[in-house]
């Protein structure tokens, strides 16, 4: 069946429309943030943050087992976001202060959170059973690879709210943040509050990653934060456009990836999250190949590492 048919079929139309709207919010938000993530080399921190969400899921599950909150709702989302922001600030702080090498700090948070999440989820099932609390089960697959087709009105609304929040915060701090990203020491010497900018970056990253997990899951969320920006920066090496243009290309790449991925997923009956990521990877590879094989000019630029 084709995406078009799903969208015209009255039984599946709402499902797919909601998935597309929620997905759009995610890819636009990630597309805006992505060039900065690539330039600032935050990809691995993003990966760490998304896996930390596991710990957040575990904390939410145990709270749900004790009847404090219900799974699948806004409260659960808030717990996961809070956990991820804390983990992001922890990773950012540890690696900045060079207490540990950056990859070690991130790796530690990543595995620590995942282990905590696994233990807590298991414990929550037992606690819920003992207390007789009914908990909505969550499939591991949807946590790992996303479940955009399950997006209900709540997911759509939180997705849009997060996208607006992230883009708004980025717009508000764009000048000091860009100065900070360009050259942190100079920015601090010129008076930019470095700690605050690092925290803003980590919060933006954490919120974006957790929102992106709806679409691509814990494992693939970072792809949405890394690939659109990588594609846009790659396409820009020859053109030399400014950051606004690169951000625009990045957003368009994200949208193409989302729609292409959803079409692919309905055509081939694949999961939507991995399909979107595959389309983005294919776009990056195609851009790279075109540049490599794009005549002597392209070849020479590529040889220079452009």
């Amino acid at each position: 069946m084709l995406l078009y048919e799903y969208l015209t079929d009255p039984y599946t139309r709402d499902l797919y429309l909601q998935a597309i709207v929620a997905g759009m919010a995610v890819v636009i938000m990630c597309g805006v943030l992505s060039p900065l993530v690539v330039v600032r080399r935050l990809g691995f921190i993003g990966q760490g943050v998304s896996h930390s969400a596991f710990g957040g899921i575990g904390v939410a599950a145990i709270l749900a087992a004790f009847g404090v909150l219900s799974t699948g709702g806004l409260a659960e989302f808030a717990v996961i976001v809070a956990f991820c922001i804390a983990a992001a600030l922890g990773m950012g702080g540890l690696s900045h202060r060079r207490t540990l090498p950056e990859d070690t700090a991130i790796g530690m948070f990543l595995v620590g959170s995942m282990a905590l999440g696994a233990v807590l989820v298991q414990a929550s099932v037992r606690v819920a059973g003992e207390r007789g609390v009914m908990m909505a089960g969550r499939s591991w697959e949807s946590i790992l690879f996303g479940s955009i087709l399950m997006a209900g009105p709540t997911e759509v609304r939180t997705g849009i709210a997060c996208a607006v929040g992230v883009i708004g915060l980025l717009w508000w701090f764009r000048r000091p943040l860009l100065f900070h990203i360009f050259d942190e020491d100079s920015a601090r010497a010129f008076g930019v509050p470095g700690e605050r900018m690092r925290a803003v970056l980590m919060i933006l990253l954490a919120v974006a990653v957790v929102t992106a997990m709806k679409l691509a899951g814990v494992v693939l969320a970072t792809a949405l934060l890394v690939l659109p920006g990588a594609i846009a920066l790659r396409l820009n090496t020859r053109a030399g456009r400014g950051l606004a243009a690169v951000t625009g290309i990045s957003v368009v790449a994200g949208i193409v990836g989302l729609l292409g991925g959803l079409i692919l997923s309905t055509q081939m009956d694949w999961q939507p999250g991995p399909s979107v990521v595959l389309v983005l990877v294919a776009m990056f590879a195609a851009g790279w190949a075109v540049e490599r094989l794009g005549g002597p000019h392209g070849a020479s630029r590529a040889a220079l590492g452009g």
Partner: protein
Amino acid sequence: MNQNQATNSDLPHAAPPGISITGVGYRYAGSESDALQDVSLRIEPGVRLGILGPNGGGKSTLLKLILGLLPLQRGEILIGGISPRHARREGLIGYVPQKLEAELGLPISARRVIELGAAWRLLPWKSIRRDSVLQTRIDHVLNLVGAAEYAHKPIGSLSGGQVQRVLIARALAAQSRILALDEPTVGIDASGQQRFADLLARIHSEFGPTIIIISHDIRAIAAGSDRVACLAQRLHLHTSPEGLTPRVLGELFAHDLAGLPAGLSGMHLHTHSAGECCDEPRVELNISTPTRSTSSPTSTPDRPRP
């Protein structure tokens, strides 16, 4: 400092602040020895001070303390009567870093880099482009440093020397009343060094800022300084290089300062400000390095001995 009276131009650069450094010491965490020991130095308003010393001699540490990038451990630094952290927040100091520290992969133009430095404090809803006063100022400093013709290009596409001019323009556009340049002539050939010295002289005569240059290269320091501080953990000499041509100093100091003591003795021999030296025994000790002084015929006759 009669030759250093600030020439107030039409641009709103008020009288530059002086800097007083009293008994400053610093030791990095985990280090066995002090990076700086009991450094006291008074930098008069509007003076051009060169801080000269070997690699690892504490120059960069002192600069970072002045810039407020490192916390003060011992002693006191006052910039126009306020602490470095306070001065940093006020934006008193324009830092020109060594060119390689910046994130040149960011797709922004040279002009945008200057705009960010000069106007990152602007409220988010105000436009930098439409701020005609700021744009006029940026045009002016771009012409002054000779970077106008490549200001529209991506910062990552510029050469090291061009990036440095842009970073100097950024500090001037930010109306910093103190300019701090870190190793400004690394990798620049002799003619480039002369052009750099001319540029600094132009900047100094137009804006009259206090200028601090950190370098291990005596020629860079001698060409553009009124005062020289020699730093190797402790302050060895604070003097004036008056009457010394870059050529003579270049011969005396050879290329690097691996043999700093020899250089120091040469320095001392040529200064007319007796009594400035803070470490007399050490300088006496080093006078027994005749090979370098005698190699230069101009240096032998005019030895001022008290």
